[in-house]
């Protein structure tokens, strides 16, 4: 067994044990339900650093028959020194009998030496039924801490605190649903106070989580940069024969282009959520709107995939070869005039005939035609709309705990003025990248530059 600290999250059923584990373990696969008894067996959440366990959280089922269990133990009590042995005997006697399954399950990690994290709901009133649970935990002799998790709207924290302080040395309030990242780290550091030997691994774990958070900003910056570049360079096109009515195809092409943009934005959202360990978020967000008045352009296309410039180059080169042959024929006395003339005539012919070539047909197959293209958006504001929405989404995700299972409703990003908050030099740098993309500069370079620009912006938004 590993020597890494073990922490058992225990308590009454339905008091937010799983929420706390979900938030601290950044794991949204933890089942959280208002129905009691959702957790039926212990589930371990090891925090590993390069494969080495730093500490393990254990989510446990809640106490179901605490008074009866305590009564059994009291019947066998001799001295305080025997308390732990009695608890061990209790688990030994009842394991698998069906009578105290939940108690045996939750006490097992505690008897393995786990630190106890006793969770109560600070929004509901304190009750005497909790005392038997706390007494049993005290009998185990393991270091313990009480966590007041205010789940609902009520405020009974003061009453809970005074009751809990009679059983636990450390009592902390921790809202698993809204705790920001720093609060989570603070709590982990506090776990290290339970036993001296646990301080170092917990400190190491906290440092690693802080480093990881920094890396997360790079990964998110990259995901957003890739999405931005894809959306800003996306287009939908259709090859038409020369003379075909382009307007007939425009609405379908525009729809295809918009669908492509929206799907890419959704992929970007999922990528960002995944970086933060959110895999099950239900998102409600308005679709991105295009701002361009006219998204369409058309150009000629040719069989063999050559563009007009390549056709001209090929024509000029062919002309130069023919002209060169004439130069050779006259023994060089033409001083390469043939080559120059040939290249000029070949290039010019290719330029003027390219339009005609597009209309030509061989065996009833067109040699070329018109390429109707929708997008990419040329509107100078479009990149900022996409980026603003992405930053807004990131801010919501970065601040969201893994215990939060509500749908993520994203309102209007413009309300947050994400772009206006940026310093002028950053906006200028962004504008340079967007301009270079509109010019057709390499997407890979733009992604690198955008990633470097966005990383500090995201870190500040998360800070």
């Amino acid at each position, binding site marked *: 067994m590993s020597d890494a600290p073990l922490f058992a999250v225990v308590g009454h059923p339905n008091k937010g044990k799983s929420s706390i584990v979900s938030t601290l373990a950044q794991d949204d696969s933890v089942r959280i339900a208002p129905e*009691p008894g959702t957790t039926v067996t212990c589930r371990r*959440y090891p925090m590993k650093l390069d494969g080495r366990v730093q500490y393990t959280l254990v989510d446990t089922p809640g106490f179901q028959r605490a008074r009866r269990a305590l009564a059994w133990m009291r019947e066998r009590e001799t001295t305080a020194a025997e308390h732990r042995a009695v608890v061990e005997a209790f688990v030994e006697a009842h394991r698998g009998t069906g009578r105290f399954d939940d108690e045996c399950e939750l006490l097992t990690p505690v008897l393995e030496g786990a630190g106890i994290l006793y969770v109560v709901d600070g929004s509901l009133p304190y009750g005497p039924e909790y005392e038997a649970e706390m007494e049993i935990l005290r009998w185990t002799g393991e270091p313990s801490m009480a966590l007041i998790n205010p789940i609902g709207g009520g405020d009974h924290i003061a009453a809970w605190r005074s009751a809990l302080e009679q059983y636990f040395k450390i009592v902390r309030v921790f809202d698993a649903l809204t705790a920001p990242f720093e609060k989570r780290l603070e709590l982990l550091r506090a776990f290290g106070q339970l036993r001296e030997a646990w301080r170092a691994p917990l400190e190491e774990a906290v440092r690693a989580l802080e480093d990881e958070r920094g890396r997360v900003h790079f990964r998110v910056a990259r995901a957003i940069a890739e999405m931005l570049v894809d959306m800003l360079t996306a287009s939908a096109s259709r090859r038409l024969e020369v003379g075909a009515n382009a307007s007939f195809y425009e609405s379908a092409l525009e729809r295809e282009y918009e669908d492509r943009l929206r799907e890419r934005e959704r992929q970007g959202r999922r990528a960002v959520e995944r970086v933060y360990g959110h895999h099950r978020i239900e998102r409600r967000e308005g679709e991105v709107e295009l701002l361009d008045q006219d998204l369409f352009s058309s150009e000629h296309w040719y069989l063999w995939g050559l563009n007009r410039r390549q056709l001209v180059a090929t024509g000029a080169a062919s002309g130069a070869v023919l002209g060169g042959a004439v130069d050779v024929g006259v023994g060089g006395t033409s001083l390469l005039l043939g080559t120059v003339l040939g290249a000029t005539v070949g290039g010019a012919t290719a330029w003027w005939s390219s339009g005609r070539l597009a209309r030509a047909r061989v065996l009833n197959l067109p040699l070329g035609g018109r390429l109707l293209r929708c997008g990419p958006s040329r509107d100078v504001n479009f990149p900022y709309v996409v980026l603003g929405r992405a930053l807004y989404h990131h801010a919501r995700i970065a601040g969201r705990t893994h215990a939060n299972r509500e749908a993520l409703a994203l309102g209007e990003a413009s309300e947050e003025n994400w772009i206006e908050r940026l310093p002028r030099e950053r906006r200028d740098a962004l504008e340079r990248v967007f301009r270079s993309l509109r010019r057709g500069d390499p997407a890979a370079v733009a992604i690198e530059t955008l990633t470097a620009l966005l990383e500090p912006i995201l870190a500040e938004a998360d800070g």
Partner: protein
Amino acid sequence: MKASSLARLVDLTAQLEEDAKRSPEFLRRRDRTLATRLAAGADDAERAVVAWLDHIRPDDPEGPGERAVRANRVLGMGLALVGLFLGAGTAAALFHYDGSHPVNVVRVLAVFVGLQLALVAVTLVASLPERARAAIPGLGPLRDALVTFSPGRWRLAGLRFLPPRQREATERFRAMLERQRRLYGEVEKWWLLAGSQWFGVSFHLGALAMALFLVVFTDLAFAWSTTLDLSPEAFLRVTSALARPWSAFWTDGVPTAALVGETQYFRAAGSHNAAPSAPWWRFLLACMLVYGLAPRLALLAFARWRLQAAIRRAFRRIPGVAALRDRLESRLVETAAETEEASGPPQRPVLQDVVAEIPAGAACHVVVWSGFPLADAEVASRALGLEVRSFASAGEGALENDARVLATLAEARDDAPVLVVAKAWEPPVLELLDFIGELRDAVGAERAIVLAPLMAGEGDRPAAASEPEASQWRRAVDRLADPWTSVYAPVGEGT
């Protein structure tokens, strides 16, 4: 294999394309695990990526990179053969002498010096950086034309003769260059230029070999002849200028004024003197070597050097490399559970009507469970609007207290229902359900037991539980499968 070679570039692209289909979690675990093993000697980022690639794709003769390089080598050899034959053929044609007309020195110089220098100039234009090409009007289309007719491109004509796997690897390499033209544009440019220079070197080697062969094994006569108004003095100046690179140490290779003067030839004159023309061959071979072969060798070395540099640059800029470096350099932090969560008890709808109303003023026995805030019988009667015949507390303190309550209720001789008032905000734990079971045993099979989960209301008056609290209590009572046990609904709220 050299670091950042062409094979590695192809392999890296192929690997990153494969990785793009895998989950980020898998990639992080795999790459970080590898990185911890490769840590020694991989302090430089590029070397770390190379070490990673070598580990993940160990030198595999069947890998796409190796196959593409092998295919490239085979195609290069084919290109070299073509160059050798063409060079030899050209030399054979230019050095042809059947005794009627001498070899025209002007023609040899035009092809092996003039044309070669022009082609070298064209190559240099093609190798200009993209920015310089864009700044000079007309250079773009010229470069396109040069690339289209580059001998380096002829290699691809031999593709069909390659084995299928090598052909596939080469096509994949070509597709990579095409797809990411902007990223691999420089690689493609230098790859084509290196191919062209390789062809040029072969061409000149073939030409030199053939010229040497003809000089050694046949008797050649040389003369210079042109229609242009070129005096022997002017031609001497041209040849002296051309011979300057070796004139200091090899005077035999420099045409003299006498030689130039004696070997001017007019076809109309019809005769020539072969004997004094022989020294021309040294000059011509030196010209072919210095102005033909040497520039091609230099350009070949330059193109290969630039190709390696372009590959190294592309290596760093390939999309996915930055993410790969992040995976290699950052410690792998895992916090989530390693196992699936065990499923809880299945939720089923409430099968029986478990909700009961008690008419106002009806008689009942009240048990307050676990400290629900009802002080005594009088308060309970007022709060619930019922006639409370007995009042007791259970669910707190010692279990003996619960036993006493059960005993008291068992002794009650009436049929009044037993109302167990519990905190609706707490879940119905098994301890309470155990108590209900024991209560059933105590009061008999047909006595009504009503579980009343209530909220603490204003003053003494409790309030009805809201959903979803009420529903969990209904489900708990339903699971008891006891038709005489129900959940209390305050009057008017029963369903």
